[in-house]
């Protein structure tokens, strides 16, 4: 604080400012606590109700602690929900997409960041512009094309496009590459390294922080994706967690089994939350990078 004490400042106004400061602080933390509860309460209730007996879930006023802890909600939910199959399918899609995203986006970002070529800036502007293209416009022709080449009911529509770069990840990665000092590259060039060797052996190791951010965003994207699997995967054996969970809750006769639905939701949410808590910093960084100057 660079408070400039004027001669007229007296003790009374000092006490007053201190009082307003304390009230301000109390208000601040009060709002923060309230907002946290607002954000977290639904998720906390999801977790708690997943252990409740069914008759407790619909009780009013709302109860937060299970009267009896019923872990069998989980095993019961698994009986109706092909968790194993959907989990495996989701993993396959997520992992392949992850590699596709990392490979293509680092490559393209490096191209935009480190080489001069005609129309580079125009092309980069096009890249940014594709971020604004609504998915609804692309949906139907892409679906029709996949249908024509027999890719409906395969994982390809959910994996292959990731090998052609994602505009947002490319943007993030390019920002990062631009920040790497040119000297490092010049040194490698003088040593006679080829462009691809410089890329794989100098740039990729240096870009690890950006790659982690892309990996997390890509993971989250595939894991949470709903619309893609909904239209491309009709065979129940190919369903992903997101679709499986949706189908589970809308099964005829299953509509009322809230505690099991919550158990199933917890199962789907857990991996994402674990990854989030492990890589919190990178999650925040990912969001930050999108707001970064470039």
């Amino acid at each position, binding site marked *: 604080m660079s408070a400039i004490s004027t001669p007229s400042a007296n003790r009374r106004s000092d006490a007053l400012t201190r009082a307003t400061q304390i009230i301000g602080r109390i208000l601040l933390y009060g709002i*923060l606590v309230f907002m946290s509860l607002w*954000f977290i*309460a*639904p*998720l906390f*209730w*999801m977790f708690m*109700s997943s252990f409740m007996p069914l008759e407790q879930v619909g009780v*009013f006023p*709302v109860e937060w602690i299970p009267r009896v802890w019923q872990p069998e909600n989980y095993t019961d939910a698994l009986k109706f929900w092909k968790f194993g199959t959907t989990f495996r399918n989701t993993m396959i899609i997520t992992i392949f997409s992850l590699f596709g995203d990392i490979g*293509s986006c680092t490559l*393209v970002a490096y*191209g*935009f960041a480190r*080489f*001069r070529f*005609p129309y580079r800036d125009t*092309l*980069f*502007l096009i*890249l*940014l512009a*594709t971020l*604004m*293209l*609504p998915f*609804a*416009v*692309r*949906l*139907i*022709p*892409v*679906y*029709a*094309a996949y*249908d024509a080449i027999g890719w409906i009911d395969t994982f390809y529509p959910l994996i292959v496009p990731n090998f*052609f*770069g994602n505009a947002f990840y490319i*943007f993030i990665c390019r920002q990062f590459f631009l920040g790497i000092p040119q000297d490092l590259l010049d040194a490698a060039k003088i040593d006679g390294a080829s462009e691809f060797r410089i*890329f794989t052996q100098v740039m990729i190791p240096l870009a690890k922080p950006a790659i982690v951010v892309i990996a997390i965003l890509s993971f989250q994207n595939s*894991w*949470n994706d*709903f*619309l893609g699997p909904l*239209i491309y995967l009709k065979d129940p054996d190919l369903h992903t967690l997101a679709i499986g*969970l*949706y189908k589970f809750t809308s099964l005829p006769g299953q509509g009322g089994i809230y505690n099991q639905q*919550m158990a199933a*939701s917890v199962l789907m949410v857990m991996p*994402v*939350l674990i990854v*989030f808590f492990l890589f919190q910093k990178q999650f*925040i960084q990912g*969001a*930050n990078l999108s*707001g*970064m*100057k*470039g």
Partner: protein
Amino acid sequence: MATAFGSQFSALRGRKRERWSDLSPIRKREAKFGFLFIAPWFIGVLLFALFPFVASFVLSFTKYNIVAPPKWVGFEHYQHIFTDDPLFLKSLRNTAVYVGGSVAIRILLGFALALLLNTKVRFLGLWRTLFYVPSVVPIVALSIVWLYVLNARAGLLNWFLGFFGISRIRWFADPDFAMLAFLVMSTTWVGVTMVIFLAGLQGIPEEYYDAAKIDGANMAQRLWRVTIPLMTPTIYLNVLINIIGAFQVFTQVFIMTGGAPRDATRTYVLHLFDHAFQYLPPQMGYSSALAWILFMIIFAFTAVIVASSQRWVFYQGAED
């Protein structure tokens, strides 16, 4: 990214175009490698952006059900949409409510929370994490949980509102409240917007505030005269991202209401989706026409915001 747009535009304007033939052999080699590296994206843009973009425009003038080849019908779909599809207007109105409401919520609440967290608050990381968590939870799971949060008889929200003497609201049975329910739900998704704002706020040099204080500016004046002008690029970015996203709201509506009650929550993309993937036979052509109208609307909004940005977005040291 907002700045990226600005600087890319000015770079394009300022630079004289390089011709391939003008390049020295070394520069030609460099350019070849550049093209090689960006090739995956370039192919991808042609396949997954340009092709569908053009194709959906063409399809919007046809009757197309996937099984049989498209049949040309001219402007029939557009005419039908504007004159004979009451759900078009209804879904557009519902979507407009969602866009207006959720963008305002994201920007105002996101900015407010970021301001609070930027006051040298204790446990910054903890608060930020708590506010961010709902944004990483899969939307399917959130939708299922929120169905019970918004349950009229025993839901958390009605329980909470009860403390303020508000009697039970039948969120999804009452057409007047159904869209509002989705807006309430969207208040917990301000995490990403908040984090972007917070990063922007942390980037404002302390000296600016010190100088303002010396000039006798009070807190409101510092907010209005220092913080907000310096944050305009970030506000611009967040408004743009959130508007484009909000226009396409789909998943939670599809899962939670499917458009009920009485189409009060039928959003634009849900309407479009139903025509393409729910109705039999699929009306892909009609759906494409709907998609193109949506594109034009989003494009118009984006264009207005981008064009107006020169008046209200201030770049610090904009020179590259």
